[in-house]
């Protein structure tokens, strides 16, 4: 199927154990030190990454269109979407909070989904492997910070229990949004950046 680039560990029949970092012959099937399965490349990496990313895209719509938070007070009920929350902070001149929420809840998920699709493309085309590997590392690092809005909902629901005065309920978008973050994290974990280097080497040398 896919060829490993020359001089790589895989081309020498050696697999890096993803759990303990030992380099072993892949024919052993399991790492002799920690018993994890040995793979030359993550199994079905691109299929899994794409499937998880597309699921995240589908859930991204309800996550942004439905309310994430419902507030009931004497002055009436109010439902907030993610973007609505950002606008509210901005209008009340809480610019740093507005920027934090906008970055974590709007920018990072969109950029992460674009980055994942781009990485899958790079794993086929093999262009700019160094830059793409860097993009992969950033994608893996920042994804978790998107969860901040879900924690805000959890804390507000817990702390605001003032009986009839005011009550706060989680909206349906909260679960969709948490799923988007979890799915993109799983997609980043499934992606194997070594495929980019394999594809890059195939692009350089004509097929033998």
């Amino acid at each position: 199927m896919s060829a490993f680039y020359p001089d790589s560990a895989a081309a020498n029949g050696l697999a890096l154990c993803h759990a303990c970092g030992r380099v072993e012959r892949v024919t052993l099937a399991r790492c002799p030190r920690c018993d994890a399965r040995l793979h030359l490349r993550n199994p079905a990496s691109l299929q899994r990454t794409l499937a998880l990313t597309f699921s995240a895209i589908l859930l991204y719509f309800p996550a942004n269109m439905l309310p994430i938070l419902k507030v009931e007070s004497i002055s009436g009920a109010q439902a907030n979407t993610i973007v609505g929350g950002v606008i509210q902070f901005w209008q009340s001149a809480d610019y740093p909070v507005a920027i934090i929420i906008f970055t974590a809840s709007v920018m990072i998920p969109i950029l992460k989904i674009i980055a994942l699709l781009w990485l899958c493309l790079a794993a086929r085309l093999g262009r700019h492997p160094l830059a793409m590997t860097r993009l992969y590392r950033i994608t893996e690092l920042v994804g978790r910070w998107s969860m901040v809005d879900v924690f805000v909902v959890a804390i507000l629901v817990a702390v605001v229990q003032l009986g009839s005065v005011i009550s706060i309920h989680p909206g349906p978008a909260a679960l969709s949004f948490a799923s988007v973050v979890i799915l993109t994290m799983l997609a980043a974990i499934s992606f194997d950046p070594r495929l980019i280097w394999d594809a890059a080497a195939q692009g350089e040398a004509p097929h033998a």
Partner: protein
Amino acid sequence: MRPSGSSKHLACPDCDALFEAPVLKEGEQVLCPQCHALLFHYRRNSLHRASALTIAAGFLFLVANFFPFMTLRAGYRENQMVLSQSVSGLEAQGSPYLGAAVAIFTLVAPTLIIGGLIYLLLPLVASSRRLPGSIPLCRWVYRMRRWNMVEVFLLGALVSLLKLGKLATLTLGISFWAFVGLIICLTAALASIDYRELWARLENAQR
């Protein structure tokens, strides 16, 4: 000559470059020659420092879970929140799955990492021993590290403070400050572990 499997060789997890492990001095790092990924940071006795930091993190985690996190005052009403209510509150409001997710990221993952590291590191540091189940546990601790989101939760707490600050008076409890300390200790502990040393010592440890 085809290289064979041995601890002399290193492979980069990001680009699969294969090279021989260099001999390192204290504080030196190994970067991948091809993609510049940071592979190892060699620190002698990294496990000693990590075990001290993990015990401190474990103590702070207990404090954080058994004392009030924040108190909300609005008029004559007062409501104290403990950390676990961020999970039970969601469940009570009809969002059990969301509650379960928050529980995994802020309770289960940190408990597994802190408890797991104490179970692994103390016998290793004290007497070069490993307790039963150490090998699979070490794999789990390593796998759980990205699902531990205590620092993201803290950012969420700060945003909540600002969001509610105008409606009511909020005071921070002991648990909040213990939680800040927990994040500092746990981040430092995880950063100071040299996984190569950890696995090598686990492998050679007496049972």
